[in-house]
């Protein structure tokens, strides 16, 4: 009898721990960073990344992600040069080379006493550092989907796009202040449109065929970086949580685009 009680007790404790773990894992929380920037804490989880023949299961660790695309005001806060074409404190930064997005992440880390992720000689990302970095492509898609399995985070009906997206039909040919449209289910604004967002990953069309199933971080080599989300200049057909893009304007001022910006992420712990 004593043995049965012990087994039951242990089982109850295990179930309680699992239950607690499950509860905290599924909690999406809004937070404010040390420098006052709004972020959303996302639970780790498993989701279907890509669509059609590219669809595959990916498991991610929890992380924090900016609620809005990085704005020009956020750039000014840490005294970085603002290359944007469409000036406005609340508008997202654009004309930003990938390396300068990485520089911003490092400066923001230093501002908050965190360890910068990027080596500024090699641009390698130290994922163990607690500072800011660009999202991996998988993190970006996970955040954009916000638990949805459809083409868009708002379902499959393209007619709803105008409520959630700054794109060619409603942009008036320029960016809009960050957060001008409705957020996704996890409270993230402008995951589609306004500016396309740099990811940390190097781009490879075939990467999904060989990518690890847990915390994929992109190919080791390549010249282009992943872009996600589409911009103010794109038409309806360009959007979707699984839509992939890339660009080579990594460090070359001559080919910067006013359609490209970014948002930052960092480890959840």
């Amino acid at each position, binding site marked *: 009898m004593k043995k049965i009680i012990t087994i039951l007790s242990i089982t109850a404790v295990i179930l309680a721990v699992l239950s607690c773990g499950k509860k905290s894992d599924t909690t999406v929380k809004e937070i404010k960073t040390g420098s006052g920037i709004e972020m959303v804490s996302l639970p780790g989880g498993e989701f279907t990344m890509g669509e059609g023949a590219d669809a595959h299961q990916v498991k991610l660790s929890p992380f924090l992600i900016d609620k809005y695309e990085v704005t020009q005001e956020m750039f000014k806060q*840490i*005294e*970085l*040069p*603002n*290359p*944007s*074409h469409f*000036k406005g404190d609340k508008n997202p930064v654009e*004309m930003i080379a990938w390396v*300068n997005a990485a*520089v911003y992440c490092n*400066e923001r880390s230093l501002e908050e006493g965190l360890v910068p992720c990027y080596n*500024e000689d090699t641009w390698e990302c130290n994922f163990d550092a607690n500072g800011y970095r660009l999202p991996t492509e998988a993190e970006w898609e996970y955040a954009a989907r916000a638990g949805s399995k459809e083409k868009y985070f708002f379902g499959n009906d393209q007619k709803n796009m105008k409520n959630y997206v700054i794109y060619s039909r409603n942009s008036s040919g320029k960016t809009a202040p960050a957060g001008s449209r409705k957020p996704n289910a996890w409270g993230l604004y402008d995951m589609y449109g306004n500016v396309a967002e740099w990811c940390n990953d190097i781009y490879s069309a075939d990467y999904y065929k060989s990518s690890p199933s847990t915390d994929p971080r992109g190919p080791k080599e390549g010249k282009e970086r992943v872009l996600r989300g589409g911009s103010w200049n794109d038409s309806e057909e360009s959007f979707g949580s699984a839509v992939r893009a890339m660009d080579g304007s990594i*460090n*070359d*001022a*001559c*080919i*910067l685009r*006013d359609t490209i910006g970014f948002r930052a992420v960092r480890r959840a712990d």
Partner: protein
Amino acid sequence: MKNKYTILAILMFSSVMLTAGENKPAINLSAIKYRLVYETFDNGSFDICIINADGTGKKKLTNTKNVHEMHPKVSPDGKLISYLQDTGEGRDRKRDLYVMNIDGSGKKLISKDSREQCWSPDGKFIAFVKSESTRRFSLESWSTKGLFFYNMETGQVREHANKTLEHLYSLGWSPDGKYVTATVLGGMGLKHTNIGIEVNGSRYFKLNVTGCRPEFSPDGSRIGWGRTDFEFNIAKINMNRSVPVLDKDKINFLHVTKGYEVYHLDWSPDGKYIAFSFGPDGEQHVGGTAKGWNICIAEIATGKSAYVTTDGNQNKEPDWIPAGE
């Protein structure tokens, strides 16, 4: 061995230096009597070299291990070189504007946290811009603010009347002395274009030139610029016209195959040649890494071109020395 290397280099050059789809034979550089200055990476830092147009007589004018001397610009009388000096590394790096004699002696600080300089055609002023951020150093050419003029006689610095000027780079002074040209990126509401700025007024205007780094020919009748990373354009220019460069006048002068870049076009004092930097994909901005880059010369009349340097030591930013030197 040296001859073999030179021939190999010229063959490689011919295979990538394509104008209108056809290979051009090398030109006779020994017929060019001018010399050039340029920056080169050696012994762990950038230094400034002087060299004959045919690649002989190379001599370092600076030789400092932990200090970078770059972006040399020779005064119109050929007696002085203005240049940029970087000290420190990473985010704490500093970039200052200096002048020295043409033989490398008499170094003198002109302005701290300054860059992208050029001479006025009479040699009395140096135009420059300031580094934009004091929080951390940026290698980006466009990371600048303001436009300033250093008076060589008095040592006084005057800021341009238009205080909204920002993100200017690759300054050039028109031979008539009235305008400074520049590339602008994300400044004054402009995306990425090339502008002319009145030296003694406050107005600026677009040149109708897409790309970067416009350079006047010595007589001021033409400009050359980089339309992309891999091609130069040349066109007639009239700064008194509402559209200074007409589309119909633009000529694709030189382009290279994918994987290579051309930058830093500079007209010879007689207007017959351009010198430029050429090499595999690299970083063209001052202080950027450009392994394998060399200084080259192309003849305007024929499009023929040839190497001046062949060591590939990140040789960039050539500037001709006028005959007066």
